[in-house]
């Protein structure tokens, strides 16, 4: 594009936004709100994905040993498990180690343990990882029959349940995101439609004297992109603040909930929102112009 044309385009956009400044502010605000909700669902879905992934990789069998098992037979049991089909790793977690881990997990809520004093109710255990998640059930059944093993648990129900919930949230979240993208498109294309209507004479003359469709389209497209961009900036800022509050709250109360850390994650979300806003703005203005360019 020629420099004089770029100047023309930028000047046109500037004048148009100033002429309809209230309309522009109103549509930037509405776009911001809908991109904000869009972003919330994006964050939710991504966190759900991450949770599902971490659960998937964590599918392991906890093998609790009976209290009366002697130190010497612990190695025998480990050997038996290791010799079974499809076993990946076997890690011993002694009573003391288990208690230490539990305390760490509780973090600031460690005081809860004061109630049980110095006793350690946790058993000796093995953490067994299998090569494939679908081998879990068979392996757990076999392990539980070994002498000296109290129980072999793998929380299959919980895992399955979580998968179901995350799938639901993913589908629902995606549907809501599509809906909000549609709403944003509608808002922007309506705003641009007003500009196009105000300048329909100019567009007609441009066509008579031989302006190309792209030349006519540019200022409107850029106007839509600008609306989408500013809406996106406001939404991204608000998301940054909101996610900050949510992560703080969750670290305070649910310490081991695996939220995606704020940085750089929220930066990517912000960029995603901006790009979405701008793309939607471009598409919205193209839609508004279509009728006038084909006429």
């Amino acid at each position: 594009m020629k420099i004089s044309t770029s100047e023309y385009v930028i000047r046109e956009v500037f004048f148009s936004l100033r002429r309809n400044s209230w309309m522009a502010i109103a549509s930037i605000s509405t776009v911001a709100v809908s991109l904000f909700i869009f972003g919330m669902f994006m964050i939710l879905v991504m966190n759900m994905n991450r949770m599902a992934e971490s659960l998937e990789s964590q599918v392991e069998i906890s093998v609790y040993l009976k209290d009366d098992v002697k130190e010497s037979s612990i190695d025998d049991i480990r050997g038996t498990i290791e010799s079974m089909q499809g076993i990946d790793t076997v890690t011993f977690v002694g009573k003391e180690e288990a208690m230490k881990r539990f305390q760490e997990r509780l973090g600031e809520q460690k005081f809860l343990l004061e109630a049980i004093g110095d006793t350690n109710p946790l058993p000796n255990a093995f953490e067994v990882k299998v090569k494939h998640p679908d081998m879990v059930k068979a392996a757990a059944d076999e392990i539980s029959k070994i002498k000296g093993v109290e129980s072999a648990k793998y929380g299959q129900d919980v895992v399955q349940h979580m998968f179901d919930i995350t799938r639901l949230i993913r589908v629902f979240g995606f549907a809501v995101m599509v809906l909000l993208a549609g709403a944003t498109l509608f808002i922007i294309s309506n705003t641009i439609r007003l500009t196009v209507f105000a300048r329909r004479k100019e567009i007609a003359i441009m066509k008579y004297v031989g302006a190309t469709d792209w030349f006519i389209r540019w200022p409107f497209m850029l106007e839509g992109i600008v609306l989408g961009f500013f809406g996106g900036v406001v939404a991204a800022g608000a998301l940054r603040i909101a996610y900050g509050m949510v992560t703080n709250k969750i670290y305070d109360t649910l310490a081991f909930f695996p939220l995606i850390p704020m940085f750089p994650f929220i930066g990517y979300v912000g960029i995603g929102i901006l790009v979405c806003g701008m793309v939607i703005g471009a598409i919205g203005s193209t839609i508004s112009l279509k009728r006038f360019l084909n006429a």
Partner: protein
Amino acid sequence: MIQMKDISKTYENGTVALERVNVEIGKGEFVFIVGASGAGKSTFIRLLFREVLPSSGTLIVNGHDVVNMPKSEVPYLRRGLGVVFQDYRLLPDKTVAENVAFAMQVIEAPRRRMQHSVNAVLDIVGLRDKYKNFPSQLSGGEQQRVAIARAIVNNPALVIADEPTGNLDPETSWEIMDIFKRINASGTTIVMATHDKYIVDTMKRRVIAIEDGKIVRDEAQGVYGYEN
């Protein structure tokens, strides 16, 4: 300049506006399209710059195959033409000079030529001293002169005008015709639809008469031939 063969135009609602029209217009000609209201003059004009597409037939304008050209080529057809309407169609919030320059700007003409070309065409139409005025500060004749300046600023090979004097009194109409005569004298082809009997009869140029969408007369130095 214009080769029209077996051109027919039927609008979407079924109105037959032109029927099997054959016209050949050479470079540098000055042609009047005459006929009663509803005869098909405007349709003829609008076909030339592809505002409407013919229903059948072939049409070559200034080397462009108007019927088969892709949509993306239409702007380039129009850059070789200047179009003037009865209602001027100026932009009210732009000055005279800006209205004329607008036609150069939107086809991305080099900016250094702009000032010079705008001045030159404003000289031709005699409005150099009013370049700063807005259309609302001009008479009808002056507004039409701005529209003509805009139509010729990109040096078109062909100027087409649809009843350019339709809203003007006889004296002003003559001033406008004088400008068209001068543009034509510089080699530009002119096709003008009109139902101004006096102008046609006095100019003694080629006259193509249309009745009910058909050409009924095509004379080299014709007259209007109807009573108004």
